[in-house]
């Protein structure tokens, strides 16, 4: 600690100011919750192929709503953001699973067609 003790008061004042600022700068994360709601809704409709991510997204959205109700806005915002990220991953995974299956089926049908041609 090279810190000069004459500044002790100032540091205290700063910490206080930051704490106050934190309180004051944590408005209800309505927008994040709306975004999370929409993302989870969409994932619910098209991401059955990514059940783990979907479940996590739903769980976090539920907890974000609970935090919101408890006026714990910091937690509500963090959970809402995580729920959105989980829902996006769920959708991406479901899309990837679909394209993966389609590609496999397509390659199989090409092989069958080729075999059919070779037979005739």
């Amino acid at each position, binding site marked *: 600690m*090279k*810190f000069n003790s004459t*500044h002790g*008061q*100032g*540091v205290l*004042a*700063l910490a206080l*100011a930051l704490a106050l600022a934190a309180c004051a700068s944590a408005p209800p994360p309505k927008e994040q919750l709306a975004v999370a709601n929409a993302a989870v809704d969409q994932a619910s409709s098209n991401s059955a192929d990514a059940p783990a991510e979907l479940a996590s997204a739903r769980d976090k959205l539920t907890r974000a709503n609970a935090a919101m109700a408890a006026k714990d806005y*910091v937690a509500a915002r*963090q*959970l809402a*953001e*995580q729920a*959105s*990220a*989980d829902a*996006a*991953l769920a*959708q*991406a*995974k479901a*899309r*990837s699973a*679909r*394209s*993966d299956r*389609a*590609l496999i089926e*397509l*390659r199989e*049908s*090409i092989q069958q*067609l*080729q075999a*059919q*041609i070779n037979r*005739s």
Partner: protein
Amino acid sequence: MKPFATALTALAAAALFAGCASAPTVTPQLEQARTTVSRASADPAVSKYAALELKKATDSLRRADELSAKREAPADIDSAAYVAMQQARTAMTQAKAASDEDAIKSAEADRERVRADANGAAAQRARAQAADANAQAANANAQAAMASADANSARAQAAAAQASAAQAQQQAAALQQELNDLQAKQTDRGMLVTLGDVLFEFGRAEIKPGAQGAITKLATFLSQHPERRILIEGFTDSVGSDEANQVLSERRSRAVADALQRAGVDASRIDTRGYGERYPVASNSSNTDRAMNRRVEVYISDNDRPVRARG
């Protein structure tokens, strides 16, 4: 103003202190997020297909790093880091899906090509079959044409045969006419043609030039009937000695044989006899009757046997 200025100085100093001297708070979640985000950044497919999601991840990671640098509560850092990590994973998953979708498009194009090849092969087979059928049809046509040509040829042969039959009939009729001209008569020894004494000078055996027509007709008839043979018999009237008449009759029959040979009749087909004044056909009591006795008779065989001799 002074206490505020002091506080400001203190804040600046604190910030400086925090930046330089204090170690940032690095949680395992933050480490994991950094690893995941840098893996996503290094993936060319991600920058190609999921640039937007990657930017979200790097922004979120920067926020987590800032919180870490400010030594915020680990829960806050972790939340931001978690979001960054999930976004990086989303970016990589999107990139994988998008490149799969590209592969699907090209595989669909492949399948169309294969299908087109298959259709082409089927069309090729159909064309080959059509060509086969055409070839068979052409072959059948050719055979029909050949059959038709055969039929034509047969008709032509039949026509030719008819023509030659007609010609043969014509020739037969012509010969009959010629024999009629020669005043041939059917006898039990064959056909008889009598050449009167008008052929010869009195007492001589040379045939008169005017008799050549009768010789030619006879030779022509014989050449048309090469199997037939002839017997030439010479006769005289009763004027003169028997010996002289015998010799004269032989010479006259011989003279007719020679004339026929000159006209192309083979000597082997010809026999000659002289009978002198024997076998008269009239009384010898008048010039007219004697002229009838001075004659040469030519017998033509009905078949390929020699003509039977008299008596």
